Every structure is written in structure tokens, then in C-alpha cells.
């Protein structure tokens, strides 16, 4: 039996003349913290809504724990807990009432003890009797996570969970999500347009661009340190280029101009390269590493745009 908690097969969705998602397939396995990356409008929320049965795909299928998910198998949703975009709840009810109400709809018998447990996990203990309209955005997000967690689902889907949070709130949310994965063994799908957040949290990821999958895989592999971009700014010197072309560093050259050299290499090789450049008479002004998800993401999405002829 497969370890896939959820699997999307060739999902497509069009709204009028706008194609939101095209032929998208991916799977999330037990234990993954799966990053769903893409710019605003890339199709992340539409895809998540298709996974949850909120939006019906024009084509393709969703499998939850190996079973086809559709209107007749909505019971499969008991394996999933989700927050979709903003954590909207009944503002005129207390946090406790909201939690209890959604717990009752979760398809599993849930004891009061469990409600206290999840409030403890998300750090809302002591505030549960306040009306939600008095909660800050961060508290609403936490309550949303408590609602998603309360029935102990196999998969947590968090769509833009840091939206609207201040930097402190974002950091706290990141710690909470990491703790849910590490300490509570939750499989998590987290979508965001904040690349840094995904880089910090995810173990596997998919990048969407204009409704299509650009790349999918383990974050460690996709962000291979040997592929780090090292940018070296020098005082303009045309002779350095000639010397580089005939040296052993030739195979690492990614981009080159009189004042800017970009190498694709492991950062540990940089001191040796720096020594070599200085020995060749280059006046090194600055060395920067740009091996971040952001650089990777931009290179992939730009490449996809070029291929599609949209830039």
C-alpha cells in the first residue's frame, strides 16, 4: 500500500477564460512537510480547494489515503484538517464554542480533554472563553490551527497561514508548525508565497507557476549546496575573463562580465577561488552567496516564462 496521504492526479480547473490550474499531479507522503510555493495567482489556493472538495476540478482526480475523493466520499475529509486563507470563524461566539462546534462536525467522537489539549498546543489556553471578535489576527490563526487539529487528522493543510501576521506572529507560527511536525508527527501541506517561510519549514516542495508545476522534490535535493550561486564583484578587468576560461574554474562559471562573475559551486570552494582571483590580479570587492530558495524560484519561474513566451 502506498504511503501517500493525498494524491492529485492531472488536476485542471478553468474559471471562464482563465485557466487556474493545468494538468497538475503531485503526492504528499506520511511525515512530509510539503511546501506549496507560487506567486499570488499561481493556482495554490485553487488546488488546495480542489483537494478539499470546495472546488470541483474540470479534469483529474484526488485520492485521500488511496481512495477516490468526491461528493460521495466526503467522509475521507476526516483524515484532513485545514485552514483556507484567512482563519474565519464565528466572531460572535467564543473560541471554545467555535472549537467545540467544529469538533462535533469532524466525524470523530472527541472528548473535552482533547479540546483543552489542542488549545494548549496552539497557546490559546486561558483565552478560550473570549469572543473571537476580540482575538488578534495571530490568535485567530492559532484557533484556526486548533480547529484543524482537534480531530487528530493525518494531514494538516495550511493555506497561507502567516497571512496578515506581524513579524513576531510569523516567527511564532513557524515555530508552531515545526513543532506540529516534529513533536506531534503531523504531515503538513503548507502553501505560501513567502519563499523564506517554506525554506525554513518544508522537507519537500512543489513550485507552481501560472497553474502549472515547475518542479517538485525534496528541498535538500532541489537546493543542492553544490548548485549555490556565488556572486563576485570585482573592479572592471577584462583579462580576468580570459584567464578564467583557461583555468580549472571554467566549469563553474555561470555568468561573466568585466565587473561581475557568477559561479555555480559549493560554498566551501570559495576561499580557494578567492585566492586564485587575487593571485591573478583581480581586485575583489564583494562576494555574495545567493543560494536561497528565492534565487532558485526566480530562476525557475523566469525560465518557465521564457519557455511559454510570456516575457
Amino acid at each position: 500500500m502506498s504511503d501517500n496521504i493525498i494524491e492529485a492526479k492531472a488536476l485542471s480547473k478553468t474559471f471562464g477564460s482563465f485557466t487556474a490550474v493545468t494538468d497538475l499531479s503531485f503526492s504528499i507522503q506520511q511525515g512530509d512537510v510539503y511546501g506549496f510555493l507560487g506567486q499570488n495567482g499561481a493556482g495554490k489556493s485553487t488546488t488546495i480547494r480542489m483537494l478539499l472538495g470546495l472546488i470541483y476540478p474540470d479534469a483529474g482526480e484526488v485520492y485521500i489515503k488511496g481512495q477516490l475523493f468526491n461528493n460521495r466520499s466526503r467522509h475521507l475529509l476526516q483524515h484532513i484538517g485545514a485552514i483556507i486563507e484567512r482563519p474565519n470563524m464565528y466572531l460572535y461566539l467564543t473560541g471554545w464554542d467555535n472549537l467545540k462546534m467544529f469538533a462535533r462536525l469532524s466525524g470523530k467522537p472527541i472528548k473535552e480533554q482533547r479540546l483543552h489539549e489542542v488549545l494548549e498546543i496552539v497557546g490559546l489556553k486561558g483565552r478560550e472563553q473570549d469572543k473571537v471578535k476580540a482575538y488578534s489576527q495571530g490568535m485567530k490563526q492559532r484557533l484556526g490551527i486548533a480547529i484543524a487539529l482537534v480531530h487528530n487528522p493525518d494531514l494538516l493543510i495550511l493555506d497561507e497561514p502567516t497571512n496578515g501576521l506581524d513579524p513576531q506572529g510569523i516567527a511564532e507560527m513557524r515555530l508552531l508548525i515545526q513543532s506540529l511536525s516534529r513533536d506531534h508527527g503531523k504531515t503538513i501541506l503548507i502553501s505560501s508565497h513567502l519563499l523564506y517561510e517554506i525554506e525554513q519549514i518544508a522537507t519537500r516542495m512543489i513550485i507552481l507557476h501560472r497553474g502549472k508545476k515547475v518542479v517538485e522534490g525534496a528541498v535538500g535535493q532541489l537546493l543542492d549546496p553544490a548548485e549555490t550561486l556565488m556572486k563576485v564583484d570585482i573592479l572592471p578587468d577584462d583579462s580576468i575573463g580570459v584567464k578564467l576560461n583557461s583555468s580549472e574554474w571554467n566549469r563553474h562559471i555561470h555568468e561573466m562580465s568585466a565587473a561581475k562573475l557568477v559561479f555555480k559551486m559549493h560554498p566551501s570552494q570559495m576561499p580557494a577561488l578567492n585566492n586564485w582571483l587575487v593571485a591573478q590580479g583581480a581586485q575583489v570587492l564583494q562576494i555574495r552567496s545567493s543560494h536561497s530558495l528565492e534565487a532558485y524560484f526566480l530562476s525557475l519561474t523566469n525560465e518557465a516564462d521564457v519557455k511559454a513566451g510570456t516575457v
Partner: protein
Amino acid sequence: MLRLELYKIFKKPRTYISFGIVTAFALVIQLALVADGKNFIAFAMQGVSAQFDIGGNVLNGYLVTYIILQSLLVQIPLLIALVAGDVLAGEANMGTLRLLLTKPVSRSKIVLVKFTAAVCYALLLLLWLAVIALGLSILFFGTGDLVNMKSDAFVVLLKDDIMWRYIAAFMFAALAMTTVAALALLLSAFADNSIGPIMGTMGIIVVLMIFSTLDLPIFDVVKQYLFTTHMVGWKGFFDDPVPYDAIRFSAIVLVVYTILFVGTTVFYFRKKDIKS
């Protein structure tokens, strides 16, 4: 799940506005009639007092209740729409609908439970109206024979023959309000905020009521099938003899409309993409 829906409805302050309005409206009429009821009766009976000698307590609790019920013909459906039009659209507007739909509950069940909750609210509102209108009117004005003044005749119903008519009339009104709730629910499924369904329900009821009451031959065929024509079927219980066949037909039309509205809502909502 029904308990949860009712809990949500009755936790909203807006819900109690309706009960307040009904109370205020009934009290205003009752107090006005306490103050100036005799002149009102003299004016209303001026056409018949020359030919008939009508004695006894004409301005009694039964008559006052009848006057209140006739006056609330348009207001009560509006108050029902205020809640029924909100049950789906209001949740879409708040963003709670998408959270609700990520739970393992069928969409049909969600619609049917919300409809049932809206009907429960309508029944409670009618029950409250019965207590306020009938109870307080009897308290203020006592009981007596009911003189039902119509445009072309008047019917006198004996005091001991009235209470069952009110019970039957309220039951019929409950059916009519169920149809109103079903219409508001249908419009609610199409919208993402509750203003549209509430105004839409009222607009439809007002326009169709105009068609129902217009005495133009061109509308004769159509209006017997409009649900608004039959919403006032409760008045039949205050005729003598009671037109049971007409009341039965009205009830059937209302049931058919209710099934049609709820069925369409379920069908549409099961297929709707939730983008809000």
C-alpha cells in the same frame, strides 16, 4: 448538527431584532386600539350599522388579533428572510462556509439542516406572535364574538367557535412561512452576502403579491399558481363555512413550491464551487 445551527442562529443578536419588531408592532396596535378603539370600530362598521344592530364586545381580543395578523402580512416574511437569507450567504460572507465544507458532512445535509433551522426560527417567531398578539389582546380586550369585516360582507363567528380557527390559521401561516424560508434559502445559495437574498426575497414576494391582488383578467390564470396568492390562505379559517377545498389547494401549492425551492437549492449547492 441541527442543534449547532440553532445555536448559531440564536447566538446572533440580529435574530432577536425580529422578536422585538413583532412585539413592538403588536403592542403599538394594541395600545392604539385601547386608546381609540371605539372610534375605529364605529368607522369600520359605518357601512353596516344602518342595516344591522351589532351589540356586545365587538372590540375584543379576537378581533384585535385578526387586525394585527392582517397588518403583519408583509413584515413577517421580511423577518423570516432576514434569517433564512443569511444561513448560506452569511456564512459565505464571513468565510466560515469554506471551513464548514472542509468537514466530512455532505453538502445536501448542510442545506437541509440549515433549512430546518430556518424553519424552526420561523415557527418560533410565529409562536411568539401568537403569544403576543392573541395572548395580550385577550388580556387587554377580553373575548367575544369575532366580526370579520370583508370588503363585500361581514362574518360573525361565535366566541366559542374561534380558538380552533386561530390554531389552524397559525399552522397554515407556518406552512406559508416555510415556503418563504425556502425561497430565501434558495437565493442565499446563489449569493456571497446576505443583503441580496434578503432584498431578493422581499422583492419577489412584494411583486408577486401585487400580481396576486390585481383584479386584472390577464393575471387570473397565472395568479392561482403563485405562492403569494396562497400565503393568505389562513384567512379562510375565518369564513363561514370554512372553504376547506380552497385551503387544501393553497396548502398543496405552498408545499410544491417549498419542495421546488429546497430541491433546487440542494441541486445547485452540491455543484457550487466555493470561491468565497
